[in-house]
Structure formats: C-alpha cells, structure tokens
C-alpha cells in the first residue's frame, strides 16, 4: 500500500521542478512517485517529459496508455516519437577477430583461418566468443585473444586450475600449434603436460623443443628432472650434464646433477658441482645442506660444519631443511662433557670475564704502572668482587661446579630459587664492589 499524500506531494514537487526547468530534480521526484504508485498516470506522463532518451520517453508514454488508453497527450507524444526517433544502428557483421573474414553468426570456427571462435569459460563452463576479454556469465578474466599462443596458454592454465583437464589439454595443443617454434611456449606447454601428469607427452614436447632449440639448457634440465623422478639415473645424468654444459650458471641443474653424483658415490664430482651451485646462488639452502653431507663423507668435517651452519642460517625456522641441519649438527656435536662444561677451567674463565671491569677500574684509579698503589678500600672491594663474580658465574654458567654440588647436592643449582639465592647476592655484591672501586671519594 502506498501513501497517497506522499505520492501527491512528490508529484507536486516533480511538476513544479519540471516547470522550473530543473529536469534532474523533477526526474528524482517523479521516479520516487512512480516507485510508490506505479499506476499513477500523471507521474508517468510528466516523467516522459524529463527523461533523456527516446527509449525511456517511449516507455513512460506506453505506461500512461497502459493505465489510460484514451490519454490524448500520451498518444500524441508517441506519434511524435515515431516521427522523430533516430534510425536503428546497422547490425555489425560478425568477423573473425584474427583474420577479419566474415563468419556465420553461429559458427564456432573461422572458415578462413580455422581459429576457434568460441571457448568454454574456465570459470563457469559457459561457451562464449573469444573476443570477450571477460566472461559475461561469471566475470572470469580470459585475457586477450590477440595474444595468440599466450592467450591459449593462459586459458589452458585457467582450465587446469579448475581441473578441466581435457579443455586444458586442447588449449595447450592450440598454443603449441599457434607457435611451434617459440621456446617459451614449448616450455610452458610441456610444463602443463607435467602438471597434468602426462609425463610421456611432456617428454615428447621437451624432445621436440630440443630438436628445435638444441642450444637451450632448460629443456635438458627439465627432461633430466623427469628421468630422475622416473628412476632413470643414467638418462637423467646425461640430460643434466648437457644442461650444465650449456649453462654453467643454472644452480638448479648443478644441484640436481650433484644429487645424482652423490647418490652414485661420485663425491668429488658432486662436491665440485655443489661448490659451483652455492657460488652461483649463495642462498640455496638445500645445496649448502647437500654440500655439507658430501664434505662429511669426504672427511672434511670443518667445512661440513660451516656449510651446515650456512644452511641452517638460510632455512626458515622449523622448515624441513632447518630441522635436518639441526639433527645433523646435534649428531656431529654431542654435548660437551660435564667436566669440561662445569669444571674449574670453565669457572675460572667465567669469573675472569666478570672481573675484567673491576680490575681495570682499580688499575686506572691507581694511576701507576705497576699498579701497586691501589687503595686498601679498592683492594677489599676487589676481593668482594671476586667472590661476587664467582657467585654470579655459578648462578648463570657453571651451576654444577664442585662447590655448588657440595652445598646443594648432586644436581647443583637446579631450581630457580637456588639460582636466585646465589645469583642475586652475587650481582648485588659485584655492583657494590665496582661502585667502591670506581668511586675515589
């Protein structure tokens, strides 16, 4: 139900605006009025006077006649429109978007150049004309038909992403047919075959590519990878060797060939290739990891550790390479013996580190060489600093040294409260002693 008073108000405002020449304002009021009361004869009639196009005007007048077939103004207006309407635009002749030859309106293939004119949209599967850059059904981007082979490649990839394998295969074939000598297209088509699991077709495509471009290393490397996956190491090695011969800066091929050499036990060859691979690509974490394995097998443990550390630094924390590096380093570096880690030597080293500042400060304040003139207070503070440094070192670095084990039991300073009990007085005394040494009163 509409509000009559509101419609009347809108109509009055609309008519007033139309009479004053404010067409846009009038159109807004009258459209609102027709929205609220679509059988309002006056609203449609006045609206016909303020809309812009012939077509809109005709619709408004037809609506008036639908409400009141005897309305003379509407009849007169329609007659005028018929007399003054512009002639209809000529229907464009359909032409092939590539060779511009005329094509039948329902044709799927250009009769002149055999170009496919209709394809299935990868998004919704609707058949659409190829000159559409965007599918009118679902809005899926199709690219530019005029790109030829690249258009079909893009289409093939889109089909593949949506698991429309047959269409992807057909589009790939069309791409190769369009540009049989384009190395980029050949590589992409072969890669498409690989992604679809058609390795036989991929091998054939790479072989065709090698026939046409025997100087291109990438095809050999890709073929090598396929042979490697198919457990054909000799064929794979031959392919990778050719790839490396043609491009000695291809770190992926160098790494893959080194893997084969390492698997076959040709360690010196693998080592040489991997050293080259990490020289070409210093951030190749897997190459560093394999190189460290090879070094280990060659007995070069120092270089191996360096490479493990490098691989660890390059890999993301928690990644497969990172975990592998950690595992191997742990194996290579078993824990330090308790005697070494908690013995008197280590304790002395730690205490000396903490005593550096107090000793140097006392010497500087003595002001002579040799430092015989250290004040008695500073000497006392040095003794306190020594004890404090020992306590501090026990709490942080050597919690299981002999004295701590004698006092706190076999585990030494194991619990936090035990460490705090020893460490807090240690740090406090150390600070106080340093203060006394520094302060010359």
């Amino acid at each position, binding site marked *: 139900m509409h509000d009559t008073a509101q419609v009347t108000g809108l109509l009055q405002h609309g008519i007033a605006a139309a009479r004053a020449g404010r067409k846009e304002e009038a159109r807004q009021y009258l459209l609102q009025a027709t929205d609220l009361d679509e059988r309002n004869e006056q609203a449609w009639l006045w609206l016909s006077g303020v809309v812009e196009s012939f077509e809109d005007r005709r619709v408004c007048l037809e609506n008036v006649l639908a409400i009141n077939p005897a309305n003379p103004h509407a009849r007169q207006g329609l007659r005028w429109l018929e007399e003054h309407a512009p002639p209809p635009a000529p229907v464009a002749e359909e032409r092939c978007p590539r060779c511009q030859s005329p094509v039948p309106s329902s044709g799927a293939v250009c009769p002149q150049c055999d170009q496919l004119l209709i394809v299935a949209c990868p998004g919704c599967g609707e058949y659409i004309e190829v000159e559409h850059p965007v599918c009118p059904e679902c809005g899926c981007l199709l690219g530019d038909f005029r790109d030829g082979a690249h258009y079909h490649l893009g289409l093939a990839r889109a089909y593949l992403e949506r698991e429309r394998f047959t269409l992807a295969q057909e589009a790939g074939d069309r791409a190769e047919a369009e540009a049989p000598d384009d190395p980029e297209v050949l590589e992409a088509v072969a890669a498409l075959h690989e992604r679809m699991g058609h390795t036989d077709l991929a091998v054939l495509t790479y072989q065709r590519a090698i026939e046409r471009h025997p100087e291109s290393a990438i095809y050999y490397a890709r073929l090598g990878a396929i042979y490697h996956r198919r457990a054909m190491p000799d064929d794979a090695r031959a392919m990778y060797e050719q790839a490396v011969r043609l491009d000695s800066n291809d770190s992926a091929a160098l790494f893959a060939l080194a893997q084969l050499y390492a698997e076959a036990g040709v360690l010196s060859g693998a080592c040489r290739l991997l050293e080259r691979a990490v020289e070409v690509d210093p951030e190749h974490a897997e190459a560093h990891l394999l190189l460290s394995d090879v070094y280990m097998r060659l007995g070069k443990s*120092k270089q191996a550790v360096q490479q493990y550390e490098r691989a660890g630094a390059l890999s993301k924390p928690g990644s497969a390479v990172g975990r592998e590096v950690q595992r191997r380093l742990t194996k290579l570096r078993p824990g330090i013996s308790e005697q070494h880690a908690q013995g008197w030597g280590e304790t002395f080293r730690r205490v000396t580190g903490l005593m550096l500042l107090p000793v140097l400060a006392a010497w500087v304040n003595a002001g002579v060489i040799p430092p015989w003139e250290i004040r008695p207070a500073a000497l006392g503070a040095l003794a306190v600093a020594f004890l404090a440094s020992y306590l501090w070192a026990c709490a942080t670095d050597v919690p299981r040294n002999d004295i701590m084990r004698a006092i706190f039991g076999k585990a030494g300073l194991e619990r936090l409260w035990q460490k705090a009990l020893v460490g807090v007085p240690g740090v406090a005394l150390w600070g106080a002693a340093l203060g006394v040494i520094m302060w010359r009163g």
Partner: protein
Amino acid sequence: MSEFEALMIYLAWGVDFLLSLVFLLPVKDDRGRHRSFPYMTVGIIVLNTLIFVLVNIVLFLQIDDPEVWLEQVKPFLLVPADVVEGKGLGALSVITSAFLHADLSHLVYNMLFLFFFGRKLEDVLGPTKFGLLYLACAFVSSLGSIVQEMLKLSVTQGTVPELGASGAIMGIVAAYLFLFPGQRIRTMPVLFWVVLLGIPLPIPLPIPVMIPMPAWVFILHSVLKDIAHGWLQTKAQEYGFVYSLTGSFAHLGGIIAGLTCLYFFLPAEILHYRHRVGEET
C-alpha cells in the same frame, strides 16, 4: 725531517685521505635470525641517544654559552692526565665518556654500527654478557691513552679530552669478525666529500648500491685508517700542532679489546667446537 720520514708522512696522509673519503655502511648480512629481541643493543642505543639529547641539546640550549657548557660536561669526559693524577671521576669517566658524543654525525655513525653488529653479537652472547663485553671494550679502548699518560709518553700531556663510543663499538665489530669471519656483509658506500661546482663539500652522499663485502674488509678499512691517522696525529704532535681529535688509537684499542675480551664471554659450546672441529681436520 729525513726524506724517508717525509715520504712516510705523505704515504700515511694519502692512505688516510683515501680511506676517509668512503664510509662503509653495513646494511645486511646473511645472519637473518635472532633468538630474541636485542634488548641490550637497543638499550645502549637509546641510552646514548637520550644522553646526547639531554647533554648536547637540552643542556646546551639552557646554558646558551659553549664555554660554560663545556665546563659542565668536562668532568664526564675522559682526560687521561686527570685520571692519572686522581682528579675528577677517575675510572668512572672512562664509562661516562663512552656515552657522550661530540655531534650528531658522531652519534649516528656509532649507533648505526652498534645496531648492525651489536644485535648479531648479542644473539650469540645474550644481553648481560654483551653488555659486559661492551663496557670492557670501552674500558680497554681507553687504556691506551691512560697508559701513555702513566708512562709520561704523551706529547699533549694527556690534557685532550676523549669521548665517544667508537672504541667500544670497534671492539664489538672485531668480536663479530672473530665469530663470523666468512660472513659477507651487504654494504652501502657513503662518500664523504662531494664536489659541487668545483668546490669540495663535506656532505655525506650514500651511493645506492649494495656491495657484498667480506667482514674482514670492514676491520681492514678501519685498522688501516686508524693506523695512518694515529701515526699522523703523533707526528703532528711532535711538530707542535694537532692533526685531528679523533681517538684513532682508542679505535685500535677497541679492536684488540673485542678480540681478547670476547674469549671470557663466549658460550662454552662455541669455544669447544671451534677447537674440536679444527682438531679433526
């Protein structure tokens, strides 16, 4: 002056001039991961910056008289003669002077180096030991001039005040080199002198290229510059004038401090495995 001595002075001046033309700004190395936030490094940088703002800006503006301001600040600078004679803050001035800087460029370049090398070292040592190493390096780097004064060898009678964190930071750089000698550092060269309309002007001009540079090049660059600069300073003092106020020997002292003091702060595993791996090969 003998001909040989004159030749050496020209040579040292040439080396010093050429190396001073280019400042090597470390931007990135391959050690991307940190165990935790570098609290101590950032803390030292913040402290240095705060002290600079308070002393060089706020206090300077309040006093508004450079001479009075210098008198106020002087007790906190390291004056070797005062330290040896027992005047002023003594050993404490070694620490206080390490947190004072002459001007903004002095502070900025020191803090850039500290930020780059300090956090990597703190990653290995932990914040407390890193802080202690920093202070130890600051102390040892100042020892050169103090010992010189103790032995009464100083031409200037140890009256020239010293300040800045450069010695401590050179120690941190040297410790980094000791731990990661094979590390390659991506470096941005910064030219110090720009010739505009035929006039050489001391404007820092970063060259927007990243040069991967071995870590030792940094040390070599600094060591060569400091040796040449320090020797020229000594020669100039002999002839009764001041070549520059840069503490070149303090830088060298810092390098020695970093290499020696690091031993006492390193985790046992690092010392142990360096030794063990070396034994195996």
